[in-house]
């Protein structure tokens, strides 16, 4: 008897459920909320790792959130723009910003030129050779940042590293009078450390530029090049008169993506400059991380820096978004 009741109740619930689903379905259709429902999980995720932290950072940036506040010994107080003025008054901030900007200003053009040249080369090689070179590039690209950093640390290591050994064997007129045997690239100063980082980052990021350029080149009609060849145009002229104008949208996106990536570099700088041990080799990412997590932690300063960082990136991103929208990426 009781069992039947339970079964009956179950059936009723199921009937009610299916009726509910029907009503729900017509509600969804009537109000056209299906797309919004489909977006809910994605929005929750993005809110959790992007929006909410961003709001928190913005709040921290106007608070004196430091060690006493983290431990709960003192209440959090609003300090207006105090964290921003403190950041702008800190010479280390300006040094790290300068390193970040100069690094990007060197690495971005080197990567783009190297990548484009390799892309042009891949386009002119036979299928087998092209496959061989692009596979080699793919391997460099695939090497995880942590593995690449550790590997370059070893290549440039003062004790048994291959680069120091090779440089010490080369004649002085070629490599300068520095005593290269045992030369310490990573802790001597910002210039040698970022030289290694430049080689490392160009090595890992040129393949993407090369493969993207190649993909673009394949869309250019072969007749154009044929015509230019018959007219006797030089390769230089062909590039600037045919290739560049046609691939300009791709180059623009590659430029903006490279700027953003090289500006945001963290893993490689963290590992190659010895964690947070060498303050004079900080870039903006390391500077923020140090402010937030080295003792004593200051979430207030970290917040102000995050806002400054995000504003700088938004300026770059506006260019990226505009070029995407202009090319009809939203349709």
């Amino acid at each position: 008897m009781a069992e039947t009741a339970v079964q009956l109740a179950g059936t009723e619930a199921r009937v009610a459920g299916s009726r509910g689903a029907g009503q729900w379905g017509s509600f969804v259709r009537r109000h056209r909320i299906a797309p919004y429902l489909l977006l809910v999980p994605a929005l929750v995720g993005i809110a959790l790792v992007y929006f909410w932290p961003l709001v928190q950072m913005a709040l921290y940036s106007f608070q004196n959130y430091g060690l006493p506040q983290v431990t709960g010994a003192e209440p959090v107080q609003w300090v207006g723009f105090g964290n921003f003025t403190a950041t702008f008054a800190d010479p280390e901030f300006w040094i790290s910003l300068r390193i970040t900007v100069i690094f990007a200003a060197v690495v971005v053009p080197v990567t783009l030129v190297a990548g484009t040249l390799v892309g042009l080369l891949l386009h002119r090689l036979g299928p087998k050779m092209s496959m061989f070179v692009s596979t080699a590039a793919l391997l460099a690209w695939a090497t995880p940042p942590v593995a690449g950093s550790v590997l370059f640390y070893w290549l440039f290591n003062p004790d048994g590293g291959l680069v120091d050994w090779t440089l010490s064997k080369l004649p002085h007129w070629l490599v300068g009078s520095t005593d290269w045997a045992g030369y310490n690239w990573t802790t001597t100063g910002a210039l040698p450390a970022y030289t290694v980082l430049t080689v490392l980052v160009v090595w890992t990021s040129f393949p993407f530029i090369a493969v993207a350029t190649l993909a673009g080149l394949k869309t250019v009609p072969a007749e154009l090049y044929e015509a230019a060849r018959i007219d006797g145009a030089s390769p230089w002229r062909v590039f600037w008169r045919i290739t560049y104008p046609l691939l300009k949208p791709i180059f623009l996106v590659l430029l903006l993506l490279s700027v953003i990536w090289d500006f945001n570099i963290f893993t490689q700088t963290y590992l190659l400059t010895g964690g947070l041990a060498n303050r004079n080799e900080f870039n903006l990412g390391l500077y923020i991380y140090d402010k937030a997590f080295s003792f004593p932690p200051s979430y207030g300063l970290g917040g102000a820096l995050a806002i400054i960082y995000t504003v700088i990136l938004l300026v770059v991103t506006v260019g990226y978004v505009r070029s995407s929208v202009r090319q009809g990426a939203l349709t």
Partner: protein
Amino acid sequence: MISTRVSARTAKRTRKIALNCLGVLVALVTLFPIFWMVATAFKPSQEIYSLTPSLLPAHPTLGNFRQVIGGQASGIGTVWLFFRNSLAVTLAAVLISSLVSLLASVAVARFSFRFRATFLIMLLIVQMIPGQALIIALFREFDQLNLLQNLLGLIIVYAAQALPVSIWMLRNFVATVPRELEEAAAIDGASAVKIFWRILLPLIAPGLVATSIFAFITAYNEFIVALTFLGQDHAAYTLPIYVTYFFGRGGAEWGPIMAASTMYTIPVVIFFLIIRRRLVGGLVAGAVKG
């Protein structure tokens, strides 16, 4: 006349040889660091620290790999433990992000609604924000949720971080499926769920594979969040944090470190070779319609 044709042919052949030589040179220079990593991994320590380094190991050994697998080299456990952590985190994150981004990409590719363009632009912008800018708040947030120092926290972060690019990539694949197919099925009386499973899903499966592998590589390589979240909890380390710990421990033994790095690199290389055709399309998806 004949002589000019012959010389033109010779010039063409010379150019071809020169280009091929250049290609070989580029490939060798690019491959060299990876070659050096693998070569070091197979060298016994007296060869690694020898005064005149040799290109190939004179006496190749598996000793470095044995130390990495045995766990003596790092002092915090066998490499398989960290492989397991990394695989668990990345696979779970990829599964969640693929499912969520599939739903969202159907929304943006199949419906027109008010905030569609806003949503797409928002995705483009948030994927630019670097981890280090938000890491403090992320750390606090997950601390309060009690999700630090365990793999669930990383799974959630990686799944969510993969969403912007995954949605952009998948959107293009969904958009290429002709609407008429779905309409025809609907006329034949197929339900929305059935249309999704029987028509849409099989047709966008290649796209889903490419997006998943892309998300996999991003999560597998992720550094700053894992470094911050896992702290001193060695047992929960993912591969990049394990290699970092190993590397930063002082008195580093390059043989085992290079062996560990080699093992860490192999899965990504395999994935890159699988999706080589789609790699660029996905990354430039925001700019060049594909």
